């Protein structure tokens, strides 16, 4: 009987080991919103890859002074420890060799083609090919720390910023919505079907009510698009949707398609309005 009580007490201790966080106020990397820069889709820039891949997927192990192979992948350290740095496991290969993804050990480890050791992330799940392609594209573009004019020439055509951003809660209704992209827009393709704004109808969040909008490109910034609702936005939740093939850059690439390969992905921004305009 005493032993049974011991076992019950032990099982109870296991069950009380703790609960996962609800993630309130955090981005996908588990950092406070705005700190990690994880808003918007993954694009071929270091900041985006850091926010979408390294921080949320890699820093569970590759962090701190005991990081495997000395490779810290937190936002502060990762660039300096990746680009142009020889791999520990294969010293003849750089972790990231700018311009050459095939000879970059980071890509080899993610693809499972590295000469030494297991594929990363260790134990899986492994990154899908579209994500690896974005990392390859960043390296092909020169593996810049920040997106520069030179690297922009071949980088993905994707969302760069939005105001309001995805997940924002606005105290008052915005008169206009601003969406900017990583490359210049082909404004000749803009029409009424390019952008959709809809109010989420409560309580069924899957039901939306389309709203009329007008839009125009910003003369001074050919990568930005201004969306103006035809009527004031009432308090509630809204979805701004731009389909993958609704926009194109000056090279004719549709939104969300990388310079290398990948599946087109559109833009979906959800925001809340608390007060009336």
């Amino acid at each position, binding site marked *: 009987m005493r032993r049974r009580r011991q076992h019950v007490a032990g099982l109870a201790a296991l069950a009380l080991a703790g609960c996962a966080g609800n993630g309130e106020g955090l981005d996908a990397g588990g950092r406070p919103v705005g700190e990690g820069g994880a808003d918007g889709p993954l694009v071929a820039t270091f900041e985006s890859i850091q926010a979408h891949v390294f921080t949320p997927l890699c820093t569970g192990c590759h962090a701190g002074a005991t990081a495997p192979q000395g490779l810290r992948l937190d936002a502060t350290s990762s660039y300096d420890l990746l680009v142009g740095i020889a791999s520990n496991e294969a010293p003849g290969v750089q972790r990231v060799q700018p311009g050459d993804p095939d000879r970059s050990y980071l890509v080899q480890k993610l693809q499972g083609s590295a000469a030494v050791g*297991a594929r990363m992330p260790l134990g899986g799940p492994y990154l899908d090919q579209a994500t690896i392609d974005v990392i390859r594209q960043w390296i092909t573009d020169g593996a810049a720390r920040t997106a520069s004019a030179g690297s922009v020439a071949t980088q993905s055509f994707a969302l760069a910023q939005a105001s309001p951003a995805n997940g924002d809660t606005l105290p008052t209704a915005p008169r206009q919505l601003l969406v900017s992209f990583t490359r210049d827009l082909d404004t000749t393709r803009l029409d009424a079907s390019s952008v959709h704004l809809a109010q989420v109808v409560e309580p069924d969040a899957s039901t939306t009510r389309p709203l009329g909008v007008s839009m125009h490109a910003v003369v001074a910034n050919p990568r930005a698009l201004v969306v103006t609702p035809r009527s004031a936005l009432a308090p509630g939740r809204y979805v701004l949707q731009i389909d993958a093939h609704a926009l194109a850059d000056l090279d004719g690439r549709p939104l969300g398609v990388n310079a290398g390969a990948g599946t087109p992905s559109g833009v979906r921004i959800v925001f809340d309005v608390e007060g009336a305009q």
Partner: protein
Amino acid sequence: MKIGGRSCCWVLLLWALAGAQHASAEPYLAVQQGYKCGQCHVNPTGGGLRNDFGAVFTQNVLPAHAFPGDAPAWTGKLGDVVRLGGDLRETWTRIDVPDQDTQDGWDLQELRVYGALEPIRDRLYLVVDEALAPGNAQTREAYARYADPARGWYAKAGRFYVPFGWRLEDDGAFVRAVSGINMTAPDDGVELGLELSSWSLQLALTNGAANAGTGSGSQVVAQSVWTQTRGRLGLSAAYTDAEAGARSMAALFGGLRTGPVAWLGEVDYIRDEGFPEGTRTLTTALAEMDWAWRKGHNLKLTAEYFDPDHDVDEDQKTRWSAVYEYTPMPFVQLRAGFRRHDGIPQNDFDNRDVAFFEVHGFF
């Protein structure tokens, strides 16, 4: 070599000394039996190559069905000086991540061979642990150890696994992955140890994993373990100095045996420097139950907890596992399990489910 009447008596004696009707594998086995790690392994801090006792144990106590008494026995020794061992794990894994395609398939998780030379019996050891797969061969451990069995001390120099907390088979456990001290991350340096009847003490001075390659810095690790027949209690501390920021860690770990059930627990407290906001404090914890309900069978349940930053609310992760281990005969173990990860809903990766089946061969 045949097992004769004397050998059978020896095996039975070992079993009787072990004081157990049931047995299973790895750290919880030591708790169930009241052993120190060095009881079954050449390395006093455990893991890797097994010694004479470990070889006999894995063939006669661990499996559901031992080989017939007249079958050849394997002690790991080739002559008086050379000892060999190995592990192979072929694993089928299915990983379900929300909103992503399911990944599944077979992988050669590891093929490792161990070798040791013992030019001066019970005193001088030269040990190599080589990971042959996946990928090209990689030296995990290569060290020389000199021991004074009469006084209990030893000194080790070379590449080895640093002593810190439970040395688990599951390198993905939060306490091992986050601490960065596990069986995928050996370190170079020296280790001094003292093995007394109830106490094991280690002090290691190494480079620190973050300083591998071109980095500069150092790591000091100290560990003490108090072992009794019913359980044990251990305390580890580590400080790693690195250019990108220092890390301080402490681990409190222990084990308790209640009949056929062994309980393991560990709590790690980690402070990391080198972040824009200054220092981050992390906590990981493990609670494990191993129920060896029948010879050759073990049910392992684990609950794990990870708080990546004490200053950030609602970012905690948990990991729950149920693993069944069946050792039908010597040298072969079958493992099947399910792991449930829970994390913040924004991160699909942290909410994945993993099912696996593993064939583990060892000698």
